[in-house]
């Protein structure tokens, strides 16, 4: 077994093992990392969810954990609008289907029971916690202290839900304290300030967990393993939460209660540090799994926090840092990841780029989707599938950025003959410039362009780089193609700015980002959206004095919600002056004149001015080519400037449809 480049064996990852009496075909556990939000408000599984589950079941993982179900009829444990429920036998038939799909895929089926505690009560006016401690994020319900009677009832409901999961055909169950759910609330000093036997010492705080484990074990029996997800680090210790030693003490308590696997997780939703974003280096948290394994050598340990690479996972398994690679988001981005790894095709993998589009949507109460996998969540819809083309067409695609390349890949897979044209010398479009200046983890975004290069070579479609498409060129190739797709991206809308006076070094952001021009030492970036901010941050890091001018009242208006805070923080940390609610009235040799919302005029001295936004689509190219091709289409930023997620989705959808 190799990684795809014929270099590194992945023998540990694909080693069959026995776990809790079950034969497991490999050491990969699909983690219930995200509630999909695809289901009904009253907890029933939808056809959309079942179609998605079939894809998960086919990932090739040895163990598959189904997303968390809330266990109580009131919904105090419900943390997401579309979360599934398991508080009544009426839900069992749908869970039978899910367990059946997982077994059809050859995996051990585990059902997670999720009481969201501090983050629960989504349909109620309150949530339950060990003590009344308000949340430090603004989208949760006011807390109420759980009584002892409610504790007993909550434990009973968990046990009954677990029993139903087993009745539905699941092999085992899972409890989770990830992110700050109810179990974590009891375990943590941050939220557990009780003075009775459930609060105080680590032993007392762990009492709820021990009683929960014992109740679930008793309800489900010895033949059905129980997994518990516990923090190796809460990252809340600054504010009185558990330190790492306490976290591991709690793990030992769980082990002594007879759980069959501990899944080590990191961080709370309210923690001060990132744990899985792309600003965290892959492998950063592996030490926590290794510590758990060292402390409890006989306890199967699962781990996967910010560990997206099968090669790294294989290495960790070889070194005995953990026993199962627990993976979820990389499998959202590419459900074929495990299969590609097994078939030595890792170079074809679509990497999770850590954009956290999935979570951006979750926090808006929307179903989750994926930047890199446009079909995710649409598996039930036939028009998102790659079916053979009814008429094989010759298609020219103008633009080798994400939209164009996605369209090219989908269309080629359907049997069309595709040629991609791009005036630049590399595949990737404007993403290349953006990625090159990303302060987080450049390699993630760069991997998108590399993926397209690999897929073009593997699928065998031609990419003509350094080739500008215009009306003259189209006359020369008249009727050589049946359809053209304009995916040439967006550009700064220079008409929205005053014309620069002679002698001004005035550049467009894409030209600067791609290194075609070099700005001076005192630069003004016009536009505080993602392009302008990324460029400003990068220039500042390399020593340039930068000022960002934005016409809207707030910066980062077009940035994904999960990433806005990151830009705001960088802007402050790098000490980049910003002016919002400002209109540019003059661009001259001495600098830029702006007028703010109150009519005050300021002259900002500069030797370079960069236009980043507003952006506009490529209307001119549509007009130019309209009468030179049978079918003309557009996708991505060339239509409406938005971003990577939308470009990939547009390109894929058009490729499915052509």
């Amino acid at each position, binding site marked *: 077994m190799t990684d795809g480049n014929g270099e590194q064996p992945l023998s540990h990852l694909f080693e069959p093992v026995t776990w809790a009496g079950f034969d497991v075909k490999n050491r990969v556990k699909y983690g219930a990392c995200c509630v999909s939000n695809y289901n009904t408000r009253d907890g029933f599984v939808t056809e959309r969810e079942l179609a998605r589950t079939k894809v998960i079941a086919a990932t090739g993982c040895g163990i598959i954990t189904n997303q968390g179900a809330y266990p109580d009829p009131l919904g105090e444990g419900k943390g997401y609008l579309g979360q599934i429920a398991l508080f009544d036998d009426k839900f069992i038939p749908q869970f039978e289907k899910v367990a059946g799909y997982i077994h059809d895929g050859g995996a051990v089926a585990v059902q997670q029971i999720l009481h969201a505690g501090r983050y629960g009560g989504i349909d109620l006016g309150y949530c339950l916690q060990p003590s009344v401690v*308000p949340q*430090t994020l*603004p989208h949760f319900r006011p*807390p109420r202290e759980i009584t002892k009677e409610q504790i007993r009832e909550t434990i009973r409901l968990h046990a009954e839900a677990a029993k139903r999961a087993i009745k539905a055909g699941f092999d085992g169950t899972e409890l989770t304290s990830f992110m700050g759910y109810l179990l974590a609330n009891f375990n943590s000093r941050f939220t557990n300030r009780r003075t009775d036997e459930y609060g105080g010492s680590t032993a007392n705080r762990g009492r709820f967990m021990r009683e929960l484990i014992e109740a679930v074990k008793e309800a489900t029996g010895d033949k059905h393993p129980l997994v518990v997800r516990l923090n190796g680090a809460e*990252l809340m210790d600054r504010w009185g939460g558990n330190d790492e030693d306490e976290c591991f003490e709690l793990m030992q308590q769980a082990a002594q209660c007879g759980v069959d696997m501990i899944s080590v997780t990191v961080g709370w939703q*309210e923690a*001060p540090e*990132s744990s899985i974003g792309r600003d965290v280096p892959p492998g950063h948290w592996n030490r926590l799994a290794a510590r758990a394994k060292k402390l409890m050598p006989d306890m199967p340990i699962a781990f996967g926090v910010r560990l997206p690479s099968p090669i790294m996972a294989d290495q960790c398994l070889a070194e005995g840092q953990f026993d199962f690679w627990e993976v979820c988001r990389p499998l959202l981005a590419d459900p074929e990841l495990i299969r590609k790894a097994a078939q030595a095709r890792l170079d074809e993998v679509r990497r999770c780029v850590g954009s956290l589009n999935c*979570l951006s949507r979750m926090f808006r109460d929307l179903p989750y989707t994926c930047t890199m996998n446009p079909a995710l969540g649409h598996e039930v819809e036939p028009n998102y599938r790659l079916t053979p083309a009814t008429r094989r067409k010759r298609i020219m695609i103008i633009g080798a950025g994400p939209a164009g390349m996605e369209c090219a890949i989908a269309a080629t897979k359907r049997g069309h003959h595709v040629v991609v044209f791009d005036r630049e010398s590399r595949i990737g479009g404007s993403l290349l410039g953006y990625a090159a200046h990303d302060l987080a983890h450049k390699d993630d975004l760069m991997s998108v362009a590399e993926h397209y290069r690999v897929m073009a070579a593997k699928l065998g479609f031609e990419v003509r780089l350094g080739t500008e498409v215009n009306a003259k060129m189209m006359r020369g190739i008249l009727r050589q193609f049946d359809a053209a797709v304009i995916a040439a991206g967006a550009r700064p809308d220079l008409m929205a700015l005053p014309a620069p006076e002679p002698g001004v070094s005035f550049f467009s952001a894409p030209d600067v980002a791609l290194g075609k021009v070099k700005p001076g030492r005192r630069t003004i970036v016009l536009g505080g959206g993602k392009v302008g901010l990324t460029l400003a941050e990068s220039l500042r890091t390399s020593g340039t004095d930068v000022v960002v001018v934005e016409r809207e009242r707030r910066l980062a208006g077009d940035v994904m919600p999960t990433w806005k805070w*990151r830009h705001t923080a960088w802007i402050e940390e790098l000490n980049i002056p910003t002016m919002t609610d400002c209109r540019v009235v003059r661009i001259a040799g001495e600098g830029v004149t702006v007028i703010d919302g109150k009519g005050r005029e300021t002259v900002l001295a500069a030797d370079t001015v960069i236009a980043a936004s507003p952006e506009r689509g490529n209307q001119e190219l549509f007009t130019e080519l309209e009468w030179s091709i049978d079918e003309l289409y557009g996708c991505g930023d060339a239509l409406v400037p938005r971003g990577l997620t939308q470009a990939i989705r547009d390109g894929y959808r058009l490729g499915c449809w052509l």
Partner: protein
Amino acid sequence: MQRTPEPEPLQLDPAECQALLDRHAPLFAGIKAGARIGLLPEENFDSTAAAMLVWEATEQGMVAAYRRFPGFDAVEVDLLFIPDHETLRRLHDPANPLPFADLKRKVRRRETLLYVVKPRAGLLDLGYEEFLDSLGLTFMGACR
């Protein structure tokens, strides 16, 4: 009848607190009358008679006052900052050109904790949207 203990005085002059709010009145322009923001010094957090500084929005603008911190169960503020004394001192330093930028930075880094006492919908009704947005609170933590 038992008397409520007097709050321990903060080290800040009330006039300085009011001057800060007056200097930065535009920052609170969108916040509606009745809204209240509490600042409880970290050092006093576990004290039973801790005093907190409260900024209350009135028709005439923001007004600073001291109140006793009655515990999370009974606290009548919408947001509760837990800054340390140094952060409070810098916040009220007239020579600090960007006092609220400092505070926001500390909240983003979780060096200053901020409890969200009112539900989001209530905060939006009171005009906190821009203020909260600038703190970048929504997407902090494990799932970043």
